[in-house]
């Protein structure tokens, strides 16, 4: 875990040259540019695919909480 933390800090440090200034967030602030645009649709899809496939989650927690026959 310690190695992971160090690696993550390096990654964060390495990213510091990327990105935008606060006043350049016009596009990023748009609703359609949010990583999750439709919470209801996302939750629905997670649930459908959880019950039909062997994989789940990734985007967020694994979903589930069903018998899903």
């Amino acid at each position, binding site marked *: 875990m310690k190695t992971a933390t160090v690696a993550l800090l390096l990654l964060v440090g390495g990213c510091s040259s990327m990105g935008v200034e*606060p006043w350049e967030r016009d596009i990023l602030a748009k609703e359609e540019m949010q990583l999750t645009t439709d919470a209801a649709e996302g939750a629905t899809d997670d649930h459908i695919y959880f019950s039909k496939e062997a994989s789940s989650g990734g985007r967020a927690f694994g979903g589930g909480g069903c018998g899903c026959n």
Partner: protein
Amino acid sequence: MDGHSAVVAVAATKDRSISAALATATCALLGNSIPAAVEAQEEPKWDFNTSLLYYGEDENRVQDLSLKAIIRRMFVDDRSLTVSLTLDSLTGATPSGAIRQDVPQTFTRPSGNAAYEVPVGVLPLDDTFKDTRVALTGNWQQPVGDTSLINVGISASKEYDYFHLGLNGRFAKDFNKRNTTFSAGISIAQDEFDSVGGVPIPFTSMLDVGDTSNRPEASRDKDVLDVVLGLTQVISRSLVVQANYSYSSESGYLNNPYKVLSIVDGTTGDTIARTNPGPLLGPSHEFVFESRPDDRVKHSLYTQAKVFLGGKVLDTSYRYMTDDWDIESHTLDVRYRWPLSDRLYVEPHLRWYSQTEADFYRLSLVDGAPLPAFASSDYRLGAFDAITAGLKFGWKTANQNDMSIRLEWYQQAGSIPGEQLIGNQASRDNYPDLNALIVQFSYRFKL
């Protein structure tokens, strides 16, 4: 009218004119640039995200009508409480795990109090599938300091034969002028299978109607631990990317208590017939309940990129998953949001999914051969590819609320590893292909 009330009346008239007189006086002070009228209102405190979903599989398999409401109460300083409620009404039939035969087959229902017959050459489906599911979640979110956010939540759901209870927490911190966000989340859950008629002992036979001797326990538990570590990075004014690593560990009862495997002849591949106790009094052939390991560890890596292309937004994600059941999967998801006007957009969606089978996936078990440690013929543990193709229309209503409707087709096509096919099995369609239609209408409004 006495003198006193006359004075009050004059004052009231005067008051009413103050606003207009003040506007005139202000105009003289600031010049004649007439300002636009003030538009101020209190920030909405409620955000309602509601949807109605129809999910329907072909050939009378699972049908789901689902109602969902995600209600968010916003407080000042970015604190919020989100509560979601989902109601599912499920009907239809689901593959039992047994294979097709050239003769009719009889099965004891999961309840153990009746039997049903499956005609010649038809994929055995358990048609008593009918359930109502209620799911509730609650989450509290609030900032910590200027750059961090915490979120804690609880989830619960109840079906006729299943109960889920979970807790989750997530912490996110922004770095580097908020261009980089690190997040860590943990979720624990305890689920309970109260299977109809009791939980069958793995690898025991499907018994006659009324015989519950292989179902000593009414319910079994499963514990789930999920950990998600995420990194979001703004690359440029129009590109943001995310990478998540997820660890998931399940332990306890991981079987599906309704799934069976056919016991077949090692040469013909046909299911071994049983000395039938009589019409519809028990199974016509040998079937045993599936047996899965009692733990499973999954790792997945999820990446997402969202790019703004002159008004259009391309949203791409890829997920790789691997687990200690030897399943590997790849998921690629692409959405393209295309505005047709200020208020209307169309969004095509394509998703490809591919998984390998679990190392204990078996189409059937050979009569007389030593039992493997684990076996399941659940099609979801087999090797298959799936495609989703969809189209969504979204529009803003006159009062700035969001509505959308989406139509999606989901198709699964699986295959059985050649070495598992025995005798007559090679000439039968053993994998239950699945076609489903998804229609979802969403309405989001704020108060």
